[in-house]
């Protein structure tokens, strides 16, 4: 009986979490479309979420592109198909690795920072203080972060795509014996608009997930330093898992497989 009770508790807990998250998402979306909209705060968050993520996203994209080129070359070599490197690199980066790598890096950086900041505001009563100052915390804290993340992520991924392809280009031309101009021509000829757009759509969804998870866990943090720490961890873990799950879902929808 105890086992059943345990399973029941876990299921009820999960359902309660899903319900809370759904209600939070609903309140957030409602706050997005009603005035006031704080443009200045959105601009600040674009800077913090998007611009300051550029170095980490750029570096990881570069190395990922390089490793991808190397693996495709080695794998293709078994069938005498090593010339396909530029085509597969651009496909892999724009469709999958660009958005996923950028999403995971931004989740680590931004979801954690959002959860820690909002969580600290929660436990030090700053969120209650906002309410007493006739300011809606959803509009003041959540909406700017959400809008900024959804706007920034596609731009970040666009840059990550370029740097990832460049990483593959550097490895291919420096150590795999490709000619630069031919590599680039193959890349440009092969990539379609849909390849790139699918990655950018994914990026916007990942941005939504990252900001939502950061805000949700921050708002629901309890207790003191420990609670904020737990919220930060939960924000990173849940946004990473949701990003990978959403990525699969979006791939299957966008490419009708």
């Amino acid at each position, binding site marked *: 009986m105890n086992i059943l009770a345990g399973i029941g508790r876990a299921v009820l807990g999960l359902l309660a979490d899903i319900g809370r998250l759904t209600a939070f998402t609903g309140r957030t979306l409602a706050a997005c479309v*009603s005035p006031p909209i704080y443009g200045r705060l959105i601009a600040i968050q674009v800077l913090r979420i998007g611009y300051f993520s550029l170095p980490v996203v750029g570096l990881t994209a570069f190395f990922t592109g390089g490793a991808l080129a190397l693996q495709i070359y080695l794998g293709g070599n078994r069938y005498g198909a090593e010339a396909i490197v530029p085509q597969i690199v651009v496909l892999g980066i724009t469709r999958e690795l660009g958005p996923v790598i950028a999403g995971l890096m931004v989740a680590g950086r931004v979801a954690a920072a959002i959860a820690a900041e909002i969580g600290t505001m929660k436990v*030090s*009563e*700053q969120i*209650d*203080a906002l309410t*007493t*100052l*006739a300011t809606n915390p959803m509009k003041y804290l959540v909406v700017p972060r959400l809008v900024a993340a959804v706007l920034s992520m596609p731009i970040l991924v666009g840059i990550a795509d370029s740097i990832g392809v460049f990483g593959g280009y550097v490895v291919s031309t420096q150590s795999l014996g490709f000619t630069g101009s031919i590599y680039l021509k193959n890349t440009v000829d092969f990539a379609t608009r849909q390849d790139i757009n699918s990655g950018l759509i994914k990026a916007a969804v990942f941005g939504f997930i990252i900001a939502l998870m950061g805000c949700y866990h921050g708002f629901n943090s309890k207790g003191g330093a420990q609670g904020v720490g737990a919220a930060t961890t939960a924000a990173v873990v849940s946004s990473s898992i949701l990003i990978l799950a959403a990525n699969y879902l979006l791939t299957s929808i966008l490419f009708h497989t």
Partner: protein
Amino acid sequence: MTAKIQLIGVKKRFGPKVVLDGIDLTIEKGSSLVVIGGSGTGKSVMIKSVLGILTPDEGTILVDGQDVTHLRGAARDPVMKKFGMLFQGAALFDSLPVWENVAFGLIQGRGMARAKAKDVAIQKLAKVGLSEDVAYLSPAELSGGMQKRVGLARAIAADPEIIFFDEPTTGLDPIMADVINELIVSTVKDVGATTLSITHDMASARKISDHIAMIYQGRIIWSGPTSQIDHSGNPYVDQFIHGRAEGPIKMAVKA
């Protein structure tokens, strides 16, 4: 005298734990009521219920005769503009400089122009004895007493009709505590507000109130004019105001 705030049979539970068990309380317009009581007796929950941060399970809360118990969202905004609050830990926004903290309710809540709001903020800071150079510091650079003063300036910035004080002297040395008490009395007189404070500091309670109510196990067990607190004839009140370990109030060691 008319009632500014009225709580009628307010109950609030968290899971199995009953925190408010039918609070009845009336605060007359222009009066200063202090609610005393031990830690964990529901003082903060009561204030948060009036502010709408928490929703009571049962009962009614009236502000100026208007039922605000279940008022939420945009409908609540006009009510919120009547309130100012000084939080226990000051709860200043650490991302903003001091003046923007004080001006926050004016800029965000009421849409005042930043330059004008800044002038008001500097005036209010002067009222709590802080000079203009403090206005440009960040809250983290201030001592606890100064943070409380900034919190007080923020609470009175929009000249609210009602001000709440949550443990205004907790964590301050006795002299700074008295300075804050004096400031509360003078600023409240200045804006003519109705106030509701919660504290367990009796010196503070005597100084800033004209009425005192005691909360115990989620109910108001005594209330009356401050001058009567020493002659309440209530053993619970006597034990509390004299700070005795022995008496009818048993401290639960386990929460």
